[in-house]
């Protein structure tokens, strides 16, 4: 039987950058096809070609054996190709229902000329949300007000509501918690069994293992290999992706830091009913994780500690000195201060059209300037060493960061903050959309920073990461810390249990 989709010889160049070179992909009905590759391998570009967003320089696309042209997203949509993009394509000012029904909504009176039937649209949206297990999202809510994980669910519901023949998911689960992932996977399997072809991209290897039927690996824009899932070990796959051998993922944890004075001590911190009486202490050299279901206040806590919220009560001390964190500028403290790796790199971390140079040195510009005058040499030297340290792949430092792949952009965000030499680093899901190789470098980097006596507070939606990286994990539920896990008690089971606030203390390891 011919596969539903066949792409051959797809090439795409951006100026001097090779995004795809003779790439190919074939996927069949009733199969979930995983696409793997490190950051910048060209996965998203491949998806965008299929979605009609990007026009390839060369190559052919066949759908059900017929050659097809995809000049714009609308054409792809008509052909039954529906995508969930890495950068979400939701409309923040519109309601969830409007978003889900944005293309081809139900109409009153006449199928093409009638006005939009809002009731029918709302029913349709409710059904789609319920189907992916996001029934908690109100269809009239504005997407702008939803946290990233809920938005991702809306995006998936939106894709499914369009009755695709071919569904493309580009890191669609990167911000989802385990529970959401599970319910999305249930639907995806159901759809596969109904005969859909699904292309699935994720940097989380266990998701690939769990879901994929076939795999294709790309490297540097080229197709490396395709094989049925399970025929290769994950070590082999990673080797294909990064082109070298791959060691154990997490760097070793040193023993607990001594009982010296905490770098960050928070007492009784509350905010707007969304954070309740948070107490926490992080010593220099410690990596403390924030866990729990998404949206339990973890992101707000990080923002509060960074001075980005108003009306926060409670006390915060840095190295024993009480500080008022009434604005981010106030986190600039003698000896380094506090850094925040924000949630959304595109809008919060970077000035996309500006150069890598300007982005990297932006937060630390004071170090290279006297009386407001920038010393470009000092700046360049510092940038060069940061690029080396993080292995940022960029076509020179004067190109816009927008041209970097997602993972490299994330590295720029991290580099931007490392340049300020912070003593306390708040990380808001920093590995979202980062490939395994880079992730591993990042874990190593975090540990090095901790060894360099920085204190890290690390929120992640990935439990493995929390377990592998953190000395301690605080589980938040409804804005309060409900459990603290460390040592042997730091297991996936315990995290999941306390995340749902099921545990009475003791059932899953008592807090110290």
């Amino acid at each position: 039987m011919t596969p539903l989709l066949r792409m051959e010889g797809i090439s795409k160049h951006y100026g001097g950058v090779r995004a795809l070179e003779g790439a190919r992909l074939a996927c069949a009905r009733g199969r979930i096809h995983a696409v793997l590759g490190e950051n910048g391998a060209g996965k998203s570009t491949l998806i965008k070609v299929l979605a009609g967003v990007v026009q390839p320089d060369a190559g052919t696309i066949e759908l059900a054996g017929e050659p097809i042209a995809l000049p714009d997203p609308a054409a792809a949509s008509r052909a039954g190709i529906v995508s969930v993009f890495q950068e979400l394509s939701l409309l923040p000012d519109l309601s969830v229902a409007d978003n889900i029904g944005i293309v081809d909504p139900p109409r009153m009176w006449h199928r093409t000329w009638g006005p939009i039937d809002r009731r029918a649209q709302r029913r349709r949206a409710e059904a789609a949300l319920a189907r992916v297990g996001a029934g908690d999202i109100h269809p009239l809510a504005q997407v702008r007000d939803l946290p990233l994980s809920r938005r991702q669910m809306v995006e998936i519901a939106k894709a499914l509501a369009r009755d695709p023949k071919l569904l493309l998911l580009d890191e669609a689960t990167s911000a989802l918690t385990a529970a959401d992932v599970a319910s999305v996977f249930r639907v995806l399997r159901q759809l596969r069994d109904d005969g859909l072809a699904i292309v699935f991209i994720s940097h989380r290897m266990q998701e690939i293992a769990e879901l994929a039927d076939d795999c294709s690996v790309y490297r540097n824009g080229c197709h490396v290999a395709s094989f049925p899932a399970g025929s290769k070990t994950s070590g082999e796959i990673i080797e294909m992706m990064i082109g070298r051998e791959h060691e154990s993922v997490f760097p070793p944890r040193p023993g607990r830091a001594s009982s010296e004075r905490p770098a960050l001590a928070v007492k009784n911190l509350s905010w707007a009913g969304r954070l309740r009486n948070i107490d926490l202490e992080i010593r220099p050299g410690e990596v403390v994780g924030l866990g729990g279901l998404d949206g339990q206040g973890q992101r707000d806590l990080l923002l509060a500690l960074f001075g980005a919220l108003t009306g926060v009560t409670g006390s915060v001390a840095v190295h024993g000195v009480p500080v008022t964190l009434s604005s981010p500028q106030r986190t600039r403290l003698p000896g380094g201060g506090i850094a925040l790796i924000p949630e959304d790199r595109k809008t919060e971390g970077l000035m996309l059209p500006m150069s890598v140079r300007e982005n990297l040195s932006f937060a630390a510009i004071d170090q290279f300037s006297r009386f407001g005058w920038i010393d470009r040499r000092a700046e360049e030297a510092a940038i060069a060493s940061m690029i080396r340290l993080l292995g940022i792949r960029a076509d020179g430092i004067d190109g816009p960061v927008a041209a970097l792949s997602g993972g490299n952009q994330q590295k720029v965000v991290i580099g931007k903050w490392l340049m300020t030499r912070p003593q306390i680093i708040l990380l808001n899901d920093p590995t979202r959309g980062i490939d395994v190789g880079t992730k591993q470098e990042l874990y190593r980097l975090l540990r090095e920073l901790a060894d360099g006596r920085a204190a890290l507070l690390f929120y992640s939606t990935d439990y493995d990461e929390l377990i592998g990286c953190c000395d301690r994990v605080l589980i938040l539920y409804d804005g309060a810390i409900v459990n603290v896990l460390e040592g042997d008690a730091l297991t996936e089971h315990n995290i999941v249990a306390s995340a749902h606030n099921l545990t009475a203390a003791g059932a899953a390891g008592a807090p110290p």
Partner: protein
Amino acid sequence: MTAVTGPRAQDARYWLASHRGPILAAALFLAMFAVFVTEHPAGLSGNVVNTAANKGALLALVAVAQTIPVLTAGLDLSVGSVFVMTNCLASTVVTGTPREVGLGVALVVVVGVACGALNGLVVVVGRLQPIIATLATGAMYQGIALWLRPAPGGEIDEDFADFVTGSLGDVIPFSIVVLIAAVVVIWVPYRRSVLGRAAYAIGSSEQAAYMSGVPIARAKFLAYVLAGLFAALAGLLLTCVTYSGEANALLGGSYTLSSIAAVVVGGTSLYGGSGGAIGTIFGAFVLRTIGDLLFVFDIDPLSQPLFLGVVLLISVSLGSFRLLRVKKRLDLYR
């Protein structure tokens, strides 16, 4: 937040949240207008209402014209010029037999639509920034207006004009009927149409809208065409109010700027994606009533411009009270 959390109450809360702008503008207008009529020696008479309605409807139509491109995160700086140019045209062609008057009205509307279409083309096909593209086309329309009417004058069928600017049964100003009709016949269907919603989608995020397969080009084009249409309706109404035409660049400029202020006071975001014509209409009436306050308070003639400026500043700043409720400072920055 209310304690009620039933599904109805929840729906109502979302509804309220998305209609806060128009409600506030309407409340502000009613308060100001109440002060005005209580102080007016003639009180709430048919004449007073008619005068206020005619003056308000003019700006309201221009401001609705402005609203639609603004929803797409664009801007139409030519609405004032189209307003003036159609005024000049109408003062030439809307006269004669009833048939000729009808044809004249149709011609004026068609020309307004054509101006809007040119704007749309420049923005969509030319891919120029709307703010600067319409600044340029606005200059061109102003030039055409001068060419049509080098000096003030012209005429309009007086029966037609008196009817349009009069009141039905001396109670309901016909200009308000026109306004309501424009909302019911044009705005509401537009709001409910795919292209209307596409305008909101584009304003919200053009990139995301494109990736979702929203018909961007058509929706933007239509937005400018509708702007031209509403501006032409306003030009026609102006001709009825003045019985004449004048290619006055200052008038066009002041309407363009007032229209933007009305859009903002009416709760539409200049960044696009949210708001609508109803709020804008109240916003326009708020702005128009500011001038009427000169009647109410006895202000030294040479301090009047300062007074108008201060009241304008206060009304456009009222929206910043919402800042007091913002809990997340990050949300202040886009």
